[in-house]
């Protein structure tokens, strides 16, 4: 229980939290904006890393590899989108089907269950070795933080465009959207592609960070993503109203999640239990709005506006 052990582990936890923060933004897009719980991400969270590592091992530039990883994730989102809209499969089931098929796809991409990449031989953008004792422009935490700010700026711009607004409307009220001439099926597919592209990009960062991609690295990713979204909203919801800040809140939620996780590990909990605890914590947080409405609702105000 050396406190220094914990303090030394915190920067690494923060870096992981940032990387998963990109993933959590992806989950936010589907879960909060499109109003779809997309389970594809458990598969995509490996696909991105697998594509990135394999391309880099064959001599590809790191940025090209990450771009290809993002493209692969978007393809996975496209498949889920087609299952859901064109084939009429409920969104959750569509995501599970893609997730399961991605398990095979990921094995085929990597050729085996696990592929390592050596940080000394390849020019990685991020790595757990680049946390301390490196020049500041090589620092993983800084690099991922800058990437996240750029991503948030891009998403902020996109959701203010005509297409972005129509995407928000699609998630909020599909009937109204169709009545206003919005192709809701196409928009749902675009949203799923965007989300899974981000998740795969996050996966590519994570694989570099840990120095390998593994067929199981995405297991339970949706729960971590949801945890980040929920923690972010619970902690920062009152102060962050603007869409860009809401996304930032999700990233901060992800960092908090990993800091707490690190602390719990330091306290000496059996690490086999971590996923169980994560799931239970998310379950309780998801239940809060329901309980609040059921047991703590205030009676509606009488009177109110005199206008119509």
């Amino acid at each position, binding site marked *: 229980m050396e406190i220094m052990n914990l303090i030394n582990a915190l920067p690494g936890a923060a870096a992981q939290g940032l990387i998963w923060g990109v993933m959590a933004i992806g989950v936010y897009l589907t879960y909060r904006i499109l109003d779809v719980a997309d389970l594809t991400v458990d598969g995509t969270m490996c696909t991105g890393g697998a594509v990135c590592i394999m391309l880099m091992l064959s001599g590809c530039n790191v940025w090209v590899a990450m771009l290809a990883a993002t493209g692969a994730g978007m393809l996975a989102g496209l498949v889920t989108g087609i299952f859901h809209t064109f084939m009429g499969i409920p969104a959750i089931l569509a995501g599970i089907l893609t997730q399961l098929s991605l398990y095979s796809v990921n094995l085929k991409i990597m050729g085996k269950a696990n592929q390592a990449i050596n940080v000394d031989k390849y020019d990685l953008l991020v790595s757990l070795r680049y946390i301390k004792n490196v020049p500041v422009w090589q620092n993983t935490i800084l690099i991922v933080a800058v990437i996240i700010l750029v991503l948030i700026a891009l998403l902020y711009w996109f959701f203010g465009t*005509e297409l972005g607004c129509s995407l928000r409307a699609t998630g909020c*009220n599909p*009937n*109204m959207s169709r009545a*206003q001439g*919005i192709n809701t099926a196409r928009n749902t597919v675009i949203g799923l592609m965007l989300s899974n592209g981000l998740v795969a990009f996050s996966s590519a960062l994570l694989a570099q960070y840990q120095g390998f991609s593994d067929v199981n690295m995405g297991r339970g990713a949706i729960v971590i993503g949801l945890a980040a979204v929920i923690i972010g909203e619970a902690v920062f919801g009152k102060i962050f109203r603007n869409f860009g800040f809401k996304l930032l809140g999700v990233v901060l939620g992800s960092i908090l999640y990993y800091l707490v996780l690190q602390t719990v590990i330091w306290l000496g909990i059996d690490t086999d239990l971590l996923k169980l605890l994560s799931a239970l914590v998310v379950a309780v947080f998801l239940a809060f709005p329901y309980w609040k409405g059921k047991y703590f609702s205030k009676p509606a105000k009488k009177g109110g506006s005199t206008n119509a």
Partner: protein
Amino acid sequence: MLELKNLYKTFNPGTINEKTALNGLSLKLNDGDFVTVIGGNGAGKSTMLNAVAGTWFVDEGQILIDGVDVTKLPEYKRAAYLGRVFQDPMTGTAATMEIQENLALAKRRGKTRFLRPGISKSESAEYRELLKVLGLGLEDRLTSKVGLLSGGQRQALTLLMATLQKPKLLLLDEHTAALDPKTAAKVLEITDMIVNRDHLTTLMITHNMKDAIQHGNRLIMMMNGQIILDIAGEDKKKLTVRDLLDQFEHASGEAFTNDSALLG
């Protein structure tokens, strides 16, 4: 303007819940017609509107809007021709978006949406003026979320959204049914104002016979998926609720059983 030719629609065919909702329905609207639609429950009023809007496709028949065959056109494409207001005030607007964002969505109905700004500065000013006309004080709440508005305010906003791009046809599906009588009267007043101002061809379903008589230049009564009464012009002006009830009993051979129609 609108032409319905021999429409058929059966829900749940081949099951115990089979229901023929449209049974050879034909209707022709002239440019500028404001038609009120009445009929008992299950007469096919909403089904007719949904058929025009493209919520699903009809089994048989043809739908023409301004001479264009839209029978096989999906709902979101037909929206280019149509303005719609629904019975449920929650249906017509996006609750988590701002008032001005909702209007901006409606402004782009029938246009390609891509990466141009979702709403421009000059638009806000335009919407402020348009909202003023409603007289509900919404012009000062452009950036409020629509979820904060009352049902009547939301219906008035939906009405404005439906007519922001002049539609070839305005579809009103019992759009005042969920409102209290005072609010309903206000929304109907706004409806009349907008329809007259923009000379909109309109189909308005109502279960209030008085409203059906007072508004519009033509009235149709439906039963069993067909039109059983079609009155326009001077004849309509002379109509009374008693006449309509008699007509209904005469046509159906039974008493009108919808209480709300009598009491309204």
